């Protein structure tokens, strides 16, 4: 990818000189360069997502029975989340990724695509969606999450470079200054999780110990000003967003995170 940028920079820099020379002298026929895949610099890096897979393998003890999936979620109000297709695109090769009805998918390791610094591309504008790791241990009841699963989702998501909550202008600097350990291991890490439906209350339960999350841990920190929302990937999922105390070792990995939703599930008995 960096090579591609360097090449474009050189082309742009020498283009005026080339045009001037063309005006003065006859030139041999121009050579044609075939570019087989073009990639948006903000598409997800396959190498980074594989780093997320490596993290999952390293810290699998947090969720020993779970498998790793990734999931696409809407970021803009008009995002159409139906019929999404995904592929991994390298310089010379491309691989289609099957997408499940819930817009989750798995990645496989491909050495050639790693060598080619491939990108993971969707048939949607990149800014219309956000990405998360999805790690769900079997047996966790409907409407609940397991804290160890969330801890691992944070680490995988950060290592995989899935999160971008700053202005694009400063995203590179933000990436340089934030570490997985800081985001997933400190109280002000503020990694945003999403419930399946709009939430009214979130309760932690570990044996006899329970605690209701304070308001400031719901809705991406108690709500955001309208001019801040475009820089949060919680933009259209604000009512489903929450922070979990993944940094707090006093809550074991088997702690259940229980949701009370704003409304009953569609089709539920009144």
């Amino acid at each position: 990818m960096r090579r591609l940028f360097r090449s474009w920079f050189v082309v742009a820099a020498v283009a005026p000189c080339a045009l001037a020379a063309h005006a003065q002298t006859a030139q041999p026929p121009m050579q044609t360069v075939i570019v087989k895949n073009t990639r948006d610099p903000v598409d997800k890096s396959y190498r980074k997502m594989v780093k997320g897979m490596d993290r999952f393998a390293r810290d699998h003890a947090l969720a020993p029975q779970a498998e790793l999936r990734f999931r696409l979620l809407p970021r803009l109000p008009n995002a159409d989340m139906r019929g999404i297709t995904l592929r991994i695109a390298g310089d010379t090769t491309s691989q289609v990724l099957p997408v499940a009805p819930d817009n989750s998918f798995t990645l496989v390791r491909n050495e050639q695509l790693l060598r080619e610094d491939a990108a993971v591309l969707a048939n949607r504008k990149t800014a219309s969606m956000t990405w998360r790791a999805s790690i769900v241990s079997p047996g966790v009841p409907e409407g609940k999450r397991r804290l160890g699963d969330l801890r691992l989702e944070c680490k995988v998501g950060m290592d995989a470079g899935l999160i971008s909550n700053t202005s694009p202008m400063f995203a590179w600097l933000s990436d340089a200054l934030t570490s997985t350990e800081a985001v997933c291991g400190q109280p002000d890490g503020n990694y945003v999780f999403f419930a399946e439906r709009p939430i009214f209350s979130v309760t932690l339960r570990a044996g006899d110990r329970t605690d209701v999350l304070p308001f400031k841990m719901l809705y991406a920190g108690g709500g955001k000003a309208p001019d801040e929302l475009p820089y949060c990937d919680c933009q259209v999922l604000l009512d489903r967003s929450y922070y979990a105390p993944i940094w707090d070792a006093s809550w074991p990995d088997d702690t259940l995170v229980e949701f009370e939703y704003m409304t009953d599930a569609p089709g539920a008995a009144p």
Partner: protein
Amino acid sequence: MKLPVLALLLGALAGCATAPAPIGTAIPAAKLDSTVVPNQTTRAQMLAALGPTKFVHFDSGHEVWLYQSPADGGRFSEFVVLVDPAGVVRKTRRRAPSLP
């Protein structure tokens, strides 16, 4: 990269950070319980009786309002109200007192 440029960029990035949300208006717990009744109280009635406070409006039309009640030891309990798109209170909940 020169130091002033880095400082400028860091300053701009800091400007993107979110300031802590203000806490809700403090109202005695008994008054909250008697004033805010699910499926009965409206947003307008709550506003008239308790005054404005911290709230979040969602694209769905729902809102959540946050009041706080003083407790012992300088602590406050949270009182959270769900208002539906029609402006009617649908749910309330109270969180045990904690330090702000």
